[in-house]
């Protein structure tokens, strides 16, 4: 199953000049990356549903929230991955960003008699030349500005991972959390604190406000019964979760952050991607298209120029203006 096709555009025609074993390896690497990507997006969708259920106690809104969060994470993750997908073949990278070195030898040449077949032949020759001269990936993309952009990318991914981590932990311990929320609801100390009228204070103190709020959050609204977590508040749910699972929460946060960062690390550091044949062939394809377009437009320009010179008498127009 070619999972990478719809995300990264990996397909057979790109690998026509590549060994079978290399091609298979590339398919495997990109399918793996695509699978990781789909799993992370699925995690985000599930997280959205969990938050939606806690906040709204309504399946339709919860699913809507899941789709929304999934869409946001899909766009963000794909952005982060694609920003790191550049070939490590130095000449190809340079030619892709600035093709003037390829065009330079042809400036001033006569292309008016160039046929389409000749153009294709020239492009193919250039493609073969570039392929042959770019065997080993050796380009280091490091630049100081890259540190800041990398930092932003990592922060984006970590924010997403935190959102998912909290939802996964709620999902993991939801039955225990509900038991605790029932304990809180029935706790006599909390009730006394919330509704104690013997206090000497004329106005409720902060603790009393907190006690009332806590009881309010765990009290079910008859019009909107609890569906998943027996609390109307995500904050209270997190408070219970944090207090109850302690350091295990940090461990889970780190594991889920690792899960989100791994595809990013792979794309940046693994030679299967930056130094791989897929990005090399894609870069060659881009260069050939641009090169072909250059030759065809040069030919058209020269033909139009010749036509103007032959068919229009500009000298007479200039003289008539002088009169």
């Amino acid at each position, binding site marked *: 199953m070619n999972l990478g096709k719809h995300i990264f555009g990996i397909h057979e025609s790109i690998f026509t000049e590549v060994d079978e074993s290399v091609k298979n390896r590339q398919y495997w690497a990109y399918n793996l990356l695509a699978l990781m990507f789909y799993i992370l997006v699925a995690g985000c969708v599930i997280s959205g549903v969990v938050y939606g259920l806690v906040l709204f106690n309504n399946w339709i809104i919860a699913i809507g929230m899941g789709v929304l969060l999934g869409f946001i994470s899909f766009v963000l993750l794909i952005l982060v991955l694609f920003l790191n997908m550049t070939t490590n073949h130095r000449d190809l990278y340079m030619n892709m960003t600035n093709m003037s070195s390829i065009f330079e030898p042809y400036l001033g040449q006569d292309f008016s008699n160039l046929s389409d077949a000749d153009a294709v032949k020239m492009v193919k020759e250039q493609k073969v030349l570039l392929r042959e001269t770019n065997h080993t990936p050796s380009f280091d993309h490091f630049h100081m500005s890259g540190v800041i952009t990398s930092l932003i990318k990592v922060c984006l991914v970590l924010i997403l991972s935190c959102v998912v981590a909290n939802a996964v932990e709620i999902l*993991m311990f939801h039955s225990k959390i509900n038991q605790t929320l029932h304990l809180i609801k029935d706790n006599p100390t909390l009730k006394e604190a919330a509704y104690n009228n013997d*206090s000497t204070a*004329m106005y409720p103190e902060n603790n009393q406000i907190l006690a009332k709020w806590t009881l309010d959050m765990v009290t079910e609204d008859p019009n909107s019964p609890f569906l998943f977590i027996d609390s109307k508040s995500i904050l209270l749910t997190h408070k219970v979760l944090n207090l109850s*699972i302690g350091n295990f929460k940090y461990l889970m946060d780190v594991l889920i952050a690792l899960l989100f960062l791994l595809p990013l*690390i792979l794309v940046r550091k693994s030679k299967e991607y930056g130094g791989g044949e897929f990005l090399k062939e894609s870069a060659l394809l881009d260069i050939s298209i641009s090169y072909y377009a250059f030759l065809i437009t040069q030919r058209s320009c020269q033909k139009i120029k010749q036509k103007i010179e032959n068919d229009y008498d500009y000298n007479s127009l200039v003289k008539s203006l002088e009169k």
Partner: protein
Amino acid sequence: MKRERNFLNISNWIFWIVLGIILFMLLPYFKNGLYNENEIESWLATFEKIKPEPKPVPENDTIPFDNKDTTSILKWRDFENNWQYIKYKHPKDAFDRAESNRLKGEPNYSIYSLMYEQDKVFLQDLIHQMKKHIKRKNLDYMDAMSYVCSSIQFFKYTLINTSDKPCPCEESFGTYDQDCSYKTGRGCCSGVDPFAVYSPFEFCIKHTGDCDTRSLLAFTLLKEMGFDVAVMVSESEGHSVLGVSLPFNSHYRMNFGTNEFGKKYYLWELTDEDWRFGIDNVKGADWKTALQ
């Protein structure tokens, strides 16, 4: 190349192992040991703190609260220009005891705390009657504080000096004569040892005092009513005002001080009748809580 492939293979394994652990943890088993409700119980126990605290009775104070044998009157015009009148009970020798308690103050010990702890007992009936008025009039949080502070601000400023600083005297902020009463607004009282501050109960009887006496009385009355207030002091200004922490989001744009934990207290100048909460007339950037 082999090494490069290993990096992808290892990362791949890490991803699936981590994912496997997370999915495994989603199963409804094995998690009892990870979940501990004791912390929740500890958190719930913190709510016990809001039970009414027993009123501390100062040392040597053997007079029961309901065994009062004399009354005093506090009469003032509030911020709405209405005259207020409260007749309140207190121990007959409360004034003498407040004075002797003040004289016990020593350096390195909070004189404010010492006077507050004792005088709040003497002022219980006054506080009780003020509370009754606030409830009867259904005053909101800010109006209730204004009502209490107006009873202090009504009495004009009097400079308070220790024995080694005689009256009349000239200060950087004005000239003060020998009249130790609130009538002129330029009065000066000498011999108020050890730190030139009257106790809250003394102010209620003598109706005279300067910045810290006023802040301390306002603190005593409001704190006992349940307001979150503090006595604020500034070393650079050599001044004291009342600090008010608001239990709601504030729209006030005024100077504030903080306690040792950074809690914000808005500053209320009590030395003049016209100054209300919200008027940003307190200068200085080093306001700290002296009593909270």
